[in-house]
């Protein structure tokens, strides 16, 4: 019977897991069967989901308030940075999902979007990969706000990886000052990685 179930049911992916439970709190929706079972629930996914619920409940409002209220200066740590770092230390996986969720939910809320991008830019690239990467690329493709695009560029500049270079050197924007800034960052990264191109020559 289990075999039949495994083969015939196409189920769903619940945060990437092939399991029969369909709805997850992560998606902003949950359905809980208040069953009488006493089967154990404590596994790694349960721990991560509980952490994610806690982050959403206790820290989302705080983070957004900090982002909106705090003065931001490039190079200076903020309380928002400290909050995210402390949560990353406790559970990086859940914190990444949490930041990703705030980013998606606030994609049209420019001040929050900028704040999240600035926080992400100052975290270690590999620690937050691939979420960091996706958020920054999404920012670069943001058509109607040059400030969001700039934040995406700054994130790649801050990480300064070879991948940053590959992304930025193919990037063309219509705003002249931003294109000049991108070209400058690309030039610096090429020097850092000792990359020469026909464009530069």
């Amino acid at each position, binding site marked *: 019977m289990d075999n*039949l*179930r495994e*083969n*015939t*049911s*196409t*189920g*769903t*992916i619940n*945060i*990437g*897991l*092939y399991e029969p439970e*369909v*709805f997850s*709190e992560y*998606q*902003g*929706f*949950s*359905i*809980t*069967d*208040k*069953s*009488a079972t006493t089967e154990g629930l404590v596994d790694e996914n349960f721990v991560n989901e509980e952490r994610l619920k806690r982050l959403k409940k206790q820290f989302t409002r705080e983070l957004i308030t900090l982002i909106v209220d705090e003065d931001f200066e490039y190079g200076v740590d903020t309380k928002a940075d400290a909050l995210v770092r402390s949560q990353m230390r406790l559970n990086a*996986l859940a914190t*990444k*999902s949490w930041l*990703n*969720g705030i*980013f*998606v*939910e*606030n*994609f*049209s809320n420019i001040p929050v979007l900028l704040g999240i991008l600035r926080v992400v830019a100052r975290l270690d690239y590999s620690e937050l*990969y*691939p*979420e960091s*990467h*996706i*958020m920054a*690329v*999404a920012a*670069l*493709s943001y*058509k109607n706000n040059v400030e969001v695009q700039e934040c995406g560029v700054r994130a790649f500049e801050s990480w300064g990886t070879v*991948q940053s270079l*590959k*992304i930025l050197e*193919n990037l063309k924007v219509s705003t002249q000052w931003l294109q000049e800034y991108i070209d400058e960052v690309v030039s610096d990264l090429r020097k850092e990685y000792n990359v020469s191109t026909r464009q530069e020559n």
Partner: protein
Amino acid sequence: MIDFGLKYQASIFLVANDITPTPDNITTLIDLFRDKELVPNTFREISPGSPAPRGRLRLSSPNNEWNIKIASMRIDIEKNPISLKENNLGNVNDFCLEVTDFFGRIISKFPKKANRVSLGTIFLLKEMAESNLSEVYPRLFKPPEFYATSPPFEWNWRSASRVPFISGEFNENLNVITQVNRAKVEIGLNDEISFSDRIQLSLDLNTSQENTEYRFDIDFITTFYQKISVFHDDLVVKITEFING
């Protein structure tokens, strides 16, 4: 009889392990769905072939109404409720038309064929008086003595059947899986929470797993969703009528 749609999901099974979160793929997908204002993000995939979690691409509406999840071996398109007050899922036929368009967009940029196609739906039936609710169990089950004399307050009925599904050159088998549960349900949606004791109906209609050849192009996928929405609605009527007695 149907009160509320909890989820619609369309899936195609194909090799998509090349659609990873690279800048080119992210940009391509953003452009493909720009009119839908979907935002790229990730989900964690754990599959039998890859027990270590891997970050995979997902495109989501900011209000979570739509999610397109690109896993290694399948693409899922979900439509989710955004409010308990008004059900936004619409009818299954409209959903099928829309997902056909979505799959077409993806396949136009990432040409691939699938080896399975599926439609999954979950509904809550209207709340019933306890006297009516308790009559459903003996209609679906012939229980052993203990549960006949002590009727359960929770139960789960699941049946998987297989019928022919013929479309053009394709002579396929269709798995028809129906699950009917009685459960105490808590739905939490944003700041809204609803508690109820009621029946949940789930359908999973999918082409059989036996033929693993990647043979389904967008034309088959389009025909599948046209036909399956009619089959689905007919099945829902028959099952809900049976439940109602």
